[in-house]
């Protein structure tokens, strides 16, 4: 299987979907002539022309709203946000319009839109550029949200998102764009709502998603090398819909859970996961569920200190050791 980057995997997904369905159109700031702020759409303008790859002005409320309106008519726009942190200026469109139109019309109108872009900290760009709003989106019935962590997942989930008839918001990571992994040449689609066991283990379950997946995997390696503990790493991949079964099965096997995410702790995704575990696997737990989140403050700029704010493998290891 060829090794390609996460960035390339997303681009391949976009290209394949553009070729498969004439209604798929990519719209966003700098996606066409500039080749994408993070080069995800590099070369697509040349291949598919300006009808399919559209440069938008810096006007997120305008063009995201426009994409939602077009999707009501059957266009399938894939909107790029340069950063998910910029979603807030388009929040009304993303929540009130994309999230509520189907409901308020009694099911008469669908909104088959994809909104995608990076959502992660760790790049020293300060609080306004480091948001991870998957928990906020997951709180909105009507919307779906996925956070792929590997090239394989990014491609398969992106294709599923584009084919989905509901709004799907895809959160990527600027730190993952350059990472590589095996991606088959044959076409495949990963259903939304299916977690993936990134590492099998028997002693403790580490639940993670998006940028915290590599953190969890590093921690698992340290646990094995230094403490002879076999951690099972469950990558949620999709936040809503959520694969509760895989989490619960794993916890029933390991009897312990540590939840890792880049959200802030209060009302983060893992608050819901922790609830689910105590609700559905209470009798299997040998220790309280532990969480590792981003330290509860806006993102600090200082390059020396920002890594301290984000979930660290060493903290995950400590939390695991604390409940063994």
């Amino acid at each position, binding site marked *: 299987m060829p090794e390609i980057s996460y960035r390339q995997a997303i681009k391949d997904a976009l290209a394949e979907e553009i070729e498969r369905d004439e*209604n798929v*159109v990519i719209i966003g700031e700098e996606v066409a002539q500039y080749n994408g702020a993070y080069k995800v759409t590099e070369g697509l303008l040349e291949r598919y022309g300006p*009808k399919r790859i559209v440069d*938008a*002005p810096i*006007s997120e*409320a*305008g*063009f*995201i*709203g*426009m*994409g*939602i*309106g*077009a*999707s*009501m*008519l*059957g*266009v399938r726009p894939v909107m790029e946000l340069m950063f998910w942190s910029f979603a807030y200026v388009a929040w*009304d*469109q993303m929540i*009130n*319009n994309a999230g509520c*139109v*189907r*409901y*308020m*019309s*009694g*099911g*008469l*109108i*669908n909104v088959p839109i994809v909104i995608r872009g990076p959502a992660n900290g760790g790049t020293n760009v300060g609080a306004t550029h480091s948001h991870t709003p998957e928990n906020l989106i997951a709180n909105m*019935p*009507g919307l*779906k949200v996925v956070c792929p962590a590997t090239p394989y997942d990014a491609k398969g989930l992106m294709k*599923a998102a584009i*084919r*989905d*008839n*509901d709004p799907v918001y895809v959160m990527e990571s600027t730190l993952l764009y350059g990472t590589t992994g095996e991606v088959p040449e044959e076409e495949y*689609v990963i*259903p*939304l*709502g*299916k*977690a993936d066991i990134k590492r099998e283990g028997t002693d403790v379950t580490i639940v993670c998603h998006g940028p915290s997946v590599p953190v969890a995997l590093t921690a698992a390696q340290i646990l094995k090398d230094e403490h002879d503990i076999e951690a099972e790493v469950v990558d949620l991949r*999709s936040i*809503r*819909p*959520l*694969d*509760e*079964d895989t989490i619960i099965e794993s916890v029933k096997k390991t009897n312990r859970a540590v939840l890792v995410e880049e959200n802030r702790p209060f009302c983060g995704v893992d608050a*819901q996961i922790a609830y689910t575990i105590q*609700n559905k696997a209470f009798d299997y737990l040998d220790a309280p569920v532990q969480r590792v989140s981003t330290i509860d403050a806006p993102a600090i700029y200082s390059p020396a200190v920002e890594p301290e704010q984000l979930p660290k493998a060493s903290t995950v290891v400590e939390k695991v050791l604390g409940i063994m």
Partner: protein
Amino acid sequence: MTAKTTPKKRVKPATSNLAKEAKLPINKGLSKEEQIGFYRDMVRIRRFEERSLRVYQQGKIGGFLHLYIGQESIAVACASLMGDHDHMITAYRNHGHALAVGMNMNECMAELLGKATGCSKGKGGSMHFFAPDKNYWGGHGIVGGQIPLGVGLAYGVKYKGQTGSAMAFMGDGAINQGAVHEAYNLAALWDLPAIFIIENNGYSMGTSQERSSSHPAEGLAARAEGYGMAWENINGESLFAIRDGVGRAIKRAHEESKPTVLEIHTYRYQGHSVADANAKKYRTKEEIDDYRKNHDPLNVYRLYLLDQKIMSEDEMKEIDSEAKQEAEVAAQFADESEFPTAESITEDVYWEADNPDQRTSEGRLFFND
């Protein structure tokens, strides 16, 4: 360069003269039946709104009820110009548009009462009517939020290579929302067949236009010049003047794929919503009376029809009683309809959940336990 003028005054368009405007190219071919049809459509909206006000006062309608009384000519004129690929989207004052595009009184009234037989199965309410099969895309509650969607409809029309347009309606208060300006820019930048229609009734809730908007001397639509867009001011008391101006905008959309901003001068007699306790405090009784007596679009049109002997008083009375009867039947239908079941609360949220046999995703979509 300093601005020429910065007036904050409502601009009155030229006085209307329906007999003259009836001879404008877009109107002169109208048959007697079509002209009577416009009258019927306006009367039906007014009687529906009056009936729904009574239902509200009986305590059967929850939340808000924004009545369209006084503005009927706009929705009727615009709907009369819609072809296969012309679309409409508006704000919460949306019952007139809904009836004008052909939604029936029963489904509208039932929606007001929150019944399962309502156009949105009781899930939308007064502010959120939809009929995509009639190119009617709502009914939106966030001031100005529907305007980017309207531009999206125009984008969709253009993307599909259709000859069409999207009329996006808003109030005089909505024009100060950022999303509206972003939408203006995109429509002009990308040559989209969007028609922005400002239904200027002089007030956004209790705030007069004078207290909300700075704009060029020519009025609110003239802001379009800043975006290089065409614009016009229209006197909303004349259904024919509206058809004339909107017709030009539709032609521009169809033939050149270019947007237009229209300001249509109108007035609402009722409060902002029925619950508007101050409806008569932020404006004078004289002002309301003047519009009712001298500028009411329904009355102005009625006088034209009588004057031109297109209809007799008796024929008008008949239309009026038919409309009242239709609204009465709708009120009864709504009353007798069932409320949605509690189970239906989680229906119509996700397409996938409603089409389980076609579901491709896995995992939980709802989290109620």
